[in-house]
């Protein structure tokens, strides 16, 4: 009997190849979406890490010679043998070929802190240590190799190679590598000629990029939902189409349990094959969308290979799990329905009933409640999921309402028919349109998030790097002050660590300079906030401290030297600590003897002043130019744009495919509804055009519905998820142009998907159209 049933199944697929192809492709694409997003995510992570990496050497505490001179190999060995763990660094201009100049940094891969050397494990391939690593965009010559972890404009090589290339014998600095051994000595006690230097400017993007990555992860989760949804849609259709077959088999005496089991087994097999196809497809897509990324299969068995993008088991297993579990879960419902129904049932008529509407409204209410009352990261993510599912449940009814509202606008019978028919066909199109809605709203949400993030960060950089020049001053700035003329205003940056309102915090002194009043806007605060701060009794705190301590303007906060009134709040993106600004005299009271570790300098001639300072004996690597710092920070976002574009393309492609699947599935049932028009004198091309219009109309209305959903998603990401995860709120930045573009792309995806079915309709044999109207010949 099993063989006979399998024979029936097989013949079904053989006769309905398009259906089988749709099922396989649907599952494969959902899987591809998941794996592709994971790959792109990982690539984004690698890119961000590369961007961040360029700052690592400068960000870590390091030892330099007090006189700015070279550190010798003997100095390095003396420190190591005394038990101070240091790693040498050296950098200078390097031309991989004429016309291209990179900054070559020499590193000792054996002692360097983790993350500095491009490869995760330098010892795994010592032969690589003889190569110079270049960023992916610079062609590698002999003795050179490209590596995705090398930031643009940089090159990395073994310290010995770098010494040879740069014609140097010693090192620029020694990085102090944490953790130091128990009881390690003070390095200055070992070598008195050395001085510990802080970074020239504090623009470590690590915390910011962490936030960005969290948001990308959220997007990955959304894609997981969308993927499952599409599998559900595809399998649901496949099951519905075979209900008759099941009915006939049962009428012939095959037990339902056997049919069900065989069907599940068959679907699991198809899902596994399609899932594998999807995993491969996802990787091809990711590689195609993100050129320059070398995907390696090294990680397929779980081996860690550092920052390089690898096909990690969690991705491909996750992809397969989506495919198989999603398929089986999706098939369970229809199977149960078939089991409960009569042996041969009429095809169920799908109409948007009150149940999905009620469920949708309940989910939206739940989402709102979670967002307002949740108070945790999990609640934030749950709110996003509830929002998306609620919106999905409401999509058919929403479309129906919009179409009903548009009905009076129709002029002429054909327009009237188009509107009426579009509305009547919502049940058949609802899965596709819901997929489109989810894809579009996720894209709008994440796109807006990325854009808000970029613009806020860019503004923040402008604000935080208001001064033209930053100089690290291990000596407290004495040498520097002597070199500054009247045309430069030094702004010493002095701070002390303290625990304020139970939060680890930093108290910064600000001198009375227009820079702060003009370039450091307050999120909230009194108009005379800065005056009151300089008067000494008040403080301005950062958003993190505000959220964590619950203190705001008007509240008193206890500083180490007594109380201060909070008069304002400033944004401080990416800082994990609380921050308080006080006047310089007040910090002197709080931390007597604190000297500025850095000095910001306002000047009209930054480049010239830099040269002057170097000529005056300040080591070049203690001076940072604002313009260079900005360009490094903002370079991160070139990557994020590529990532966002790639994600948009992927999700819209999947949604487009869902539309195609739906259209192909209902193509046969379209004929009886179109035939009357044809017999009344609309030719086939006209009918095909009308079908295109119908799909476009559905897609356009879906896009209209997706906009508010996407903006709500974005709001959740910016103001709930981010605040819970990092303690600061990203301001929302509207970008209607980008929204319109995305909505347009969504419609385009739907229209492209509708082109083939429409073309088939325009070529259908007239007999097929006439036959559906009569039973007899």
């Amino acid at each position, binding site marked *: 009997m099993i063989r006979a049933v399998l024979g029936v199944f097989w013949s079904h697929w053989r006769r309905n190849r398009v259906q089988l192809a749709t099922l396989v492709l649907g599952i494969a694409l959902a899987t591809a979406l998941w794996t592709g997003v994971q790959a792109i995510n990982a690539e984004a992570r690698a890119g961000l890490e590369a961007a961040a990496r360029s700052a690592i050497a400068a960000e870590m505490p390091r030892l330099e010679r007090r006189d700015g001179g070279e550190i010798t190999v003997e100095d390095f*060995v003396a420190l190591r043998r005394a038990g101070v*763990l240091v790693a040498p660094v050296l950098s200078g201009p390097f031309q991989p070929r004429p016309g291209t100049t990179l900054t070559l940094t020499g590193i000792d891969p*054996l002692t360097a802190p983790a993350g500095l050397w491009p490869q995760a494990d330098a*010892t795994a391939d010592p*032969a690589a240590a003889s190569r110079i690593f270049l960023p992916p965009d610079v062609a590698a010559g002999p003795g050179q190799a490209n590596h995705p972890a090398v930031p643009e404009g940089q090159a990395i090589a073994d310290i010995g190679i770098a010494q040879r290339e740069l014609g140097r014998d010693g090192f620029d600095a020694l990085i102090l590598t944490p953790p130091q*051994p128990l009881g390690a000595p003070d390095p200055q006690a070992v070598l008195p000629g050395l001085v510990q230097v802080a970074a020239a400017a504090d623009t470590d993007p690590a915390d910011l990029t962490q936030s960005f990555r969290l948001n990308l992860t959220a997007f990955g989760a959304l894609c997981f939902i969308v993927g499952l949804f599409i599998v559900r849609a595809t399998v649901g259709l496949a099951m519905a189409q075979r209900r008759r077959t099941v009915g006939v088999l049962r009428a012939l005496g095959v037990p339902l349990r056997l049919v069900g089991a065989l069907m599940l087994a068959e679907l699991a097999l198809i899902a596994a094959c399609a899932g594998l196809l999807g995993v491969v497809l996802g990787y091809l897509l990711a590689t195609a969308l993100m050129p320059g990324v070398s995907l390696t299969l090294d990680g397929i068995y779980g081996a860690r290979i550092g920052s390089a993008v690898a096909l990690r088991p969690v991705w491909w297993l996750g992809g397969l799990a989506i495919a198989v579990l999603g398929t089986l879960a999706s098939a369970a419902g229809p199977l149960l329905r078939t089991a409960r129904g009569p042996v041969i049932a009429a095809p169920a008529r799908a109409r948007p009933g009150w149940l999905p509407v009620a469920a949708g409204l309940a989910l939206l209410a739940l989402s709102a409640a979670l967002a307002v009352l949740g108070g945790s990261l999990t609640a934030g993510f749950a709110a996003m999921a509830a929002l998306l599912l609620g919106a999905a449940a409401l999509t058919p009814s929403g479309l129906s309402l919009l179409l009903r509202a548009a009905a009076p606008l129709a002029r002429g019978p054909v327009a009237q028919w188009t509107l009426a028919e579009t509305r009547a066909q919502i049940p058949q199109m609802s899965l596709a349109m819901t997929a489109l809605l989810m894809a579009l709203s996720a894209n709008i949400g994440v796109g807006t998030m990325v854009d808000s993030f970029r613009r806020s960060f860019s503004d923040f950089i402008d604000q935080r790097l208001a001064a033209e020049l930053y100089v690290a001053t291990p000596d407290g700035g004495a040498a520097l002050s002597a070199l500054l003329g009247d045309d430069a205003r030094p702004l010493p940056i002095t701070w002390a660590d303290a625990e304020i309102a139970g939060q680890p915090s930093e108290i910064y002194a600000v001198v009375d300079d227009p820079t702060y009043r003009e370039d450091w806007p307050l999120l909230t605060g009194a108009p005379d906030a800065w005056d009151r701060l300089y008067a000494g009794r008040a403080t301005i705190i950062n958003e993190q401290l505000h959220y964590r301590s619950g203190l705001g303007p008007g509240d008193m906060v206890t500083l180490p030297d007594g109380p201060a009134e909070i008069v304002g709040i400033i944004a401080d993106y990416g800082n994990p600590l609380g921050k308080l600004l006080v006047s310089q005299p007040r910090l002197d009271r709080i931390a007597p003897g604190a000297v500025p570790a850095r000095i910001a300098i306002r000047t009209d001639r930054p480049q010239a002043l830099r040269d002057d300072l170097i000529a005056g004996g300040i080591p070049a690597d203690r001076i940072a130019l604002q313009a260079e710092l900005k360009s490094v920070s903002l370079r991160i976002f070139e990557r994020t744009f590529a990532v966002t574009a790639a994600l948009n393309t992927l999700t819209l492609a999947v949604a487009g495919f869902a539309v195609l699947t739906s259209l192909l599935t209902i193509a046969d049932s379209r004929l009886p509804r179109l035939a009357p028009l044809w017999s009344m004198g609309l030719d086939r091309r006209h009918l095909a055009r009308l079908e295109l219009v119908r799909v476009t109309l559905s897609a356009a209305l879906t896009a209209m519905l997706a906009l508010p959903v996407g903006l709500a998603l974005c709001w959740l990401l910016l103001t709930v998820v981010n605040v819970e995860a990092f303690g600061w709120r990203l301001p929302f930045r509207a970008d209607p142009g980008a929204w319109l573009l995305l909505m347009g792309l969504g419609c385009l995806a739907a229209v492209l998907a509708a082109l083939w079915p429409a073309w088939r309709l325009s070529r259908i044999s007239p007999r097929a159209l006439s036959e559906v109207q009569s039973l007899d010949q």
Partner: protein
Amino acid sequence: MINRRALILSALAASQARAQGFAGLGTESAGYAMPDPARPIRFPQDHAPHPRYRIEWWYLTAPLSFEDGTELGIQWTLFRSALSPEPAGPGGAPPQAWLGHAAVTTADLHVVSERYARGGTGQAGATAAPFAAWIDEWQMQGATPADLTLSAAGPDFRYSLRLRAQGPLIRHGQGGYSVKSQAGQASYYYSQPFYDAAGTVDLGDGPRAVSGAGWLDREWSSQPLAEDQSGWDWFSLNLDDGRRLMAFRLRGAQDYKSGTLIGADGKAVPLGDGDILLDPAAREGGPPTRWRLRLPGHDLDVTITALNPDAYMATRIPYWEGPVAFEGTAHGRGYLEMTGYTNPR
């Protein structure tokens, strides 16, 4: 013991290995010196490093006790690996890389640190006279191997020991030529198994006095592993009657067992494959930390138990190494090293 540490060394020796494929490890030693049974180990010349051999190590393990009797163990290891048999430049030495491992193990704690260094700078190295080996501030030093100071530190530990030999140096195998497989892979291998050890161990709460025994292994070769050998189990045992036992099993298509039974007077008896019976007690998911070891020809039958079953070396090439105690026809303490097992964590 060439093979037991070969995997660890492959971390450093891999440049050649990768270029030739792992199958080449046993045969493609072109250019490196090879152990020769006709040339036994000679002292004091062979206390010096042997840069013409591919790999070499200084390995000290010490089962110790705090003053209150609480048991612990320390490990101190320096590996040398030649990156090429040829000097990098005229008059220079062959390029070397150095790797240090140090650990302290108690019943409920196992702390590990790892250091890397390139040769030629002085950051790491070894000399014969004085007898010294070092990487960073980690150091083993004495006028001769008979009287050493030993120190190492990690983020969460620091120790310092004095080791005084109470017996002679032992050459394993045939005058120090120690065979490691049926196919004839071999190394030079000598030990000082008779140290009395005393000093301090600091686990972050201040230095505390410790005392116990110590065991030094020196070994060098150029042929690490037979192709089919996947890992090894190595034992160094201090019997209460003053005897010492070194025994190992190399796991391969056919296990290869070997060892040396050392009398309290320092007289060494080589043990062949048939002289040693070694049975692991099953332990799920990781290396076996209980063993039964028998030497039927010497009336020895002991059950060996690890002090801390979780003594995994969380180094770049992970393995298991920790102090053990044994009971049966003899009692005592010692060290156990196991490689090539799946680490359950």
